[in-house]
């Protein structure tokens, strides 16, 4: 089982009661962390280049002007052209000789930039960072190797730090995550009256809570039905439940609830959650059709559209299907508690949120435990 590979610290104690576990999720003060692309942490990929040591430092700026014109380094705009007396000439693979050596780069200069043939005392093969630094920390690290241009980004620095969410935000994220486990408990305890934490954690199952942060209200919730229907993972069900709050929906899992805004939550569960979470609001903003929007001269943002702007809380990291479903639904942020080493698509097997060619990207947060 995948759970066994989990690092010890992050594994919930199996002996814990369900109550304790949910209380901990909700009350812990530990901040969450974003699940970011590899470019933020993995070791720096390097590129092999030729550098030349200039004979006369007074000529340096002139040499750089000539080089910038004759050998443009388009994909390497983040690299400064010079570092003290060393000048970045070109990647070694620009020089098409069998043997990479000082002689071949001298010949290359004589052929292509004869005016610089005597400018350098000697040449070196050096490795420089292939990518631009995104964080201060990376900039410092990269600078040990070669001088880089760097534009600090406050948001990214914060996102990578340990204090991203303010206290009140953290409290609400933890509360909604606690709710996903409460939903699992609600359904699983109907089958098993002495439910333990292991029964929830080791089971291939999931629960989802979708929240509209603009109204601080729970729009839709869902518990897995994958045992009976292979597509009805909780995220897919929750997306359909959101559709039901917008006069849509495809699966007749719910409900003839008259209030459209509450069609995202099964009625018995709603009663239970209201009792357990007396301070939480439930229900979607009023859905308006295109015509209604036009008539009242409201902009498109006057009505909810799919999961635009919504936060999605999942007990477990979602699989590829569910993660892509959430991309299609245009969710704004996705939070998960337990890792899914075997199937997870937001950190474990892949990071769908980092596939740059997709048309929508959400932020992903975890580290509730």
């Amino acid at each position, binding site marked *: 089982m995948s759970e066994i590979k989990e690092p010890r610290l992050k594994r919930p104690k199996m002996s814990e009661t369900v109550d304790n576990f949910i209380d901990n999720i909700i009350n812990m003060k530990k901040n969450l962390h974003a699940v970011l692309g590899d470019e933020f942490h993995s070791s720096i990929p390097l590129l092999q280049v030729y550098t030349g040591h200039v004979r006369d430092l007074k000529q340096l700026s002139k040499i750089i002007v000539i080089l910038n014109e004759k050998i443009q380094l388009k994909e390497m705009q983040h690299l400064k052209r010079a570092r003290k007396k060393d000048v970045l000439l070109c990647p070694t693979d620009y020089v098409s000789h069998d043997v990479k050596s000082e002689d071949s780069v001298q010949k290359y200069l004589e052929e292509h930039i004869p005016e610089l043939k005597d400018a350098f005392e000697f040449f070196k093969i050096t490795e420089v960072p292939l990518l631009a630094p995104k964080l201060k920390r990376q900039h410092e690290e990269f600078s040990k190797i070669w001088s880089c241009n760097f534009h600090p980004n406050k948001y990214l620095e914060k996102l990578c730090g340990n204090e991203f969410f303010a206290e009140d935000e953290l409290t609400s994220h933890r509360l909604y995550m606690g709710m996903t486990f409460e939903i699992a408990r609600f359904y699983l305890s109907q089958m098993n009256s002495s439910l333990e934490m292991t029964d929830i954690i080791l089971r291939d199952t999931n629960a989802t809570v979708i929240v509209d942060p603009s109204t601080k209200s729970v729009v839709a919730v869902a518990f897995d039905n994958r045992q009976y229907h292979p597509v009805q993972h909780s995220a897919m069900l929750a*997306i359909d439940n959101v559709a039901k709050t917008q*006069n849509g929906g495809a*699966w007749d899992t719910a409900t003839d609830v008259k209030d459209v805004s509450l069609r995202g939550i099964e009625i018995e569960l709603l009663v239970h959650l209201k009792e357990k979470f007396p301070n939480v609001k439930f229900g979607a903003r009023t859905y308006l059709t295109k015509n209604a929007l036009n008539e009242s001269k409201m902009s498109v943002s006057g009505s909810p559209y799919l999961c635009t702007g919504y936060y999605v809380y999942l007990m477990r990291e979602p*699989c*590829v*299907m569910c993660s*892509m479903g959430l991309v299609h*639904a245009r969710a704004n942020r996705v939070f998960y508690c337990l890792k899914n080493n075997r199937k997870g698509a937001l950190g474990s097997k892949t990071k769908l949120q980092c596939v740059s*060619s997709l*048309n929508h990207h959400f932020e992903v947060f975890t580290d509730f435990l």
Partner: protein
Amino acid sequence: MVDFMKRALELASEALSAQEVPVGCVFTINSEIIAESRNSVNATHNPTRHAEINCIDTVIAHCKNNHIDYKMYFKNVTVYVTVEPCIMCAAALSNLCVKEVIYGCANDRFGGKTVLDISKFYEYNYNLTGNLMANEAMALLKQFYKGTNPNAPEPKTKKEKV
């Protein structure tokens, strides 16, 4: 083969008439159609209601009603779909261990092979073949994107976007 794709293309045109992204799909077992559908995203307000997911629903319901084990049933299914399945649908079809998927044109925006090759994450991989009546499938998509959004800027690349 061509006949099944022709049927999928008919379903895609039907989607176009209903102002949905024109993608159509048929599921077959032993050269017989067991499910057919098209996109119904706009009608359901559910962005996951792709043709393939609709067909899966039909098969699951059929299996339930006839007390068939769907896990065994899907192993014999060949999928004909006018556009390469997106990452979500490709994952769903992998989970179900369908035998084969044959598509029309590639899906440059969401493709489960073209954009992100999901076969790397699954132990089971179905046979995947593309380019069956791709021009017809692409023509429908072009018509849709021309029709719904006359003010949209021309795509930057020459590659057609799905």
